[in-house]
């Protein structure tokens, strides 16, 4: 086997086709997109070379600043909440529900498999104000509060967006983290209990350190997913009201395909890529440190 895999031509033969496909469908478009950052125009009108104009424009565009701020706010808040909630749920599965957690896990995982558009429609109806009063506003009314136009201002729309994505994704992180938690040796927990450790101490000194690798992987997944949020925003608010809930991805899409500025759209994409890279490096670095500590 070693001899076969040691042969360069065999490696080339085995990897070649996959590498070729990958190059053509991933690397080439990525490089073309990078090339677009130096051009202006679109597929209908043709392209003209503009040098670094698109990149400098990024720093002066108030819409980019706004979209960047929204993206960061959304990513940090949602990542924190969905990993924390997922972790809480995983701990619940392992330590409270134990063997009976199967049904609860399935139920809580269910929103993950629903299509985003369906979930967004569901939430639009939940938080509707007109022409019908949705359940949330009906509850507010019955408690004596006035109806709230949830999609009418930035703050409320943001809250609904976070709630929706939290509901949609917490089940996934719970299952992911559950897989990490069940790996913790029962003997170690037993030993700690015999030493007199309470539940909180157990979680803090045994469970968290031992599940740190999977926790950090979840963070990387989550931060990359939330920085690139697109479908749930489009389906729920379409970036509105105004452009208040427009993340970088949606602004990039609009710029390229609605406004016909492929070059500038590609520059926004580049910015997003750099952002994802920075966050991932940051999380991985802390991960390496933490793992050695544990």
């Amino acid at each position, binding site marked *: 086997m070693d001899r076969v895999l040691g042969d360069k031509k065999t490696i080339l033969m085995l990897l*070649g086709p996959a590498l*070729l496909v990958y190059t053509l469908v991933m690397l080439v478009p990525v490089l073309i997109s990078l090339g677009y950052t130096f051009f202006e125009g679109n597929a209908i009108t043709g392209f003209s070379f503009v040098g670094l104009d698109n990149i400098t424009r990024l720093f002066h565009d108030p819409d980019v600043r706004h979209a960047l701020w929204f993206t960061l706010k959304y990513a940090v808040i949602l990542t924190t909440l969905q990993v924390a909630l997922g972790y809480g749920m995983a701990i619940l599965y392992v330590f409270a529900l134990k063997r009976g957690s199967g049904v609860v896990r399935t139920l809580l995982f269910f929103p993950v498999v629903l299509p985003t558009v369906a979930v967004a429609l569901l939430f639009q109806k939940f938080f509707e104000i007109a022409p019908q009063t949705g359940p949330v506003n009906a509850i507010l009314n019955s408690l004596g509060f006035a109806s709230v*136009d949830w999609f009418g201002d930035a703050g409320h729309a943001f809250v609904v967006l976070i709630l929706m994505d939290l509901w949609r994704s917490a089940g996934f992180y719970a299952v992911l983290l559950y897989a990490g938690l069940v790996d913790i040796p029962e003997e170690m927990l037993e030993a700690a209990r015999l030493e007199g450790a309470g539940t909180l101490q157990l979680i803090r000194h045994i469970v968290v350190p031992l599940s740190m690798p999977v926790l950090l992987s979840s963070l990387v997944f989550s931060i990359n997913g939330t920085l690139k949020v697109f479908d749930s925003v489009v389906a729920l608010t379409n970036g509105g009201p*105004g452009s208040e809930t427009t993340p970088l991805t949606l602004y990039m899409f609009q710029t390229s*395909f609605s*406004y*016909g500025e492929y070059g500038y759209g590609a520059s926004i994409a580049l910015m997003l890529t750099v952002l994802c890279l920075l966050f991932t490096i940051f999380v991985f670095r802390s991960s390496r440190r933490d793992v050695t500590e544990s």
Partner: protein
Amino acid sequence: MNTWSRGRRARTVLKVTGVSAAALLALTACGGSGGGGSSSGGGDPQEFSFLINAENTTIPDELTTLSKDQCKAENKDLPLKIETVPQTQLDQKLQLLAGQDALPVSFAAGNTPALTETLDKDGQLLDFEKTFTDLGVIDQISPAAISTIKSLYGGKFNVLPYQYNIEGFWYNKKIFADNGLEVPQTYDDLVSDAAALDEAGVQPFSASGEQGWPLTRLISGYLSRELGPDAMQRIKDGDAKLTDPEYVDAAQKIADLGDKGYFGKGLGSIDYDTAINTFLKGDAGILYMGSWVLGSFADESLNKIGSDNIGFFPFPNVEGGAGSSEQLPANVGLPMAFSAKQYNKKVGAWLKCIAENYGQASLEDQNSISGFVPATTPELDPLTKLVQDTVDKTTESTLWFEALFGSKATTVSQTNAAPLVSGDQSPEDFMKKVQDAQGSK
């Protein structure tokens, strides 16, 4: 391992790589063509594919009717296939399709005349002046409609006048009578009528904030009365800016209506259909809309207040303003174009059949006035007749707010209209955003 087997492996590697590359090239080639769902690209369409905004039900319904009746033979040769896309996503879809030379046989050519012109410059749009002359049916199109099209779309006749619309306020006669209100003659009258309706517990205006344009139309309506019919042309020519005080003032006037709650709750979430339904259920007194809405008015399952109960008045005069209420916004609806690249004899046959029959059929079936000349003038229902008379009386047409804007300014204007009217954005900020977006393009 001997030299022979090594050589054979090297050849195998080459073969595998070669086959994979060829397969990929074939795949890429497939990806590039095949536009409009199932048409086979490049001038030989197998279907009369038609991409239209989902909000428009009039044209698809009418073409479907024609395909079963007058245009049956043409439909047999080239079956009609309608595909819809939400209007807010139309421009994106068009740009993608046009970029790949994959536009369907016929399509709604964009939310802005600017995009339609871009498509034309790229040679995507069929020139109807030439085509209809060649087909011998140019006299089936009303000259007024052709001139409106030319004034909007860069001097060319490259979109079809499936609709010939005027815009203004439709009001519920019974609600007006019950509250002792008269048709407003001035803008101040309109505001005081709205106040009276609001006081009586009736929502004064029904409008779609999700679409945005029903709100920005009010701004341009006010501007054309206050500053004259060329108010928006001056912005395009650079003689005025949207941030000039008189322009901001118009936005302020419309924002004031929202501030008083005259558009009801949750304006930003109200879509087109909901806005129409609210009016047709008798829950709102006034609806600003184009005459394309007659199709919905004629639908008895939608119209609960009855067509007799609906009246029309143009955007009223602004006292001391330079414009007059006889100047009406006119348009041909969302522009519907034909692909120059997909045109062939069979498409020509369809086009000829449409030119000869659409005008009559749309008047009879949908009460919708088009730019196609009907063979005979059928008995018109009162509302259609009212529109026809108003069209005849109109001395000069005006432009809607976004008519001369680029794609970005149009999007910015329409998505920020609801926040403006809901009071979440100041008129200064709104006009500045739109002006900046117009300037950046």
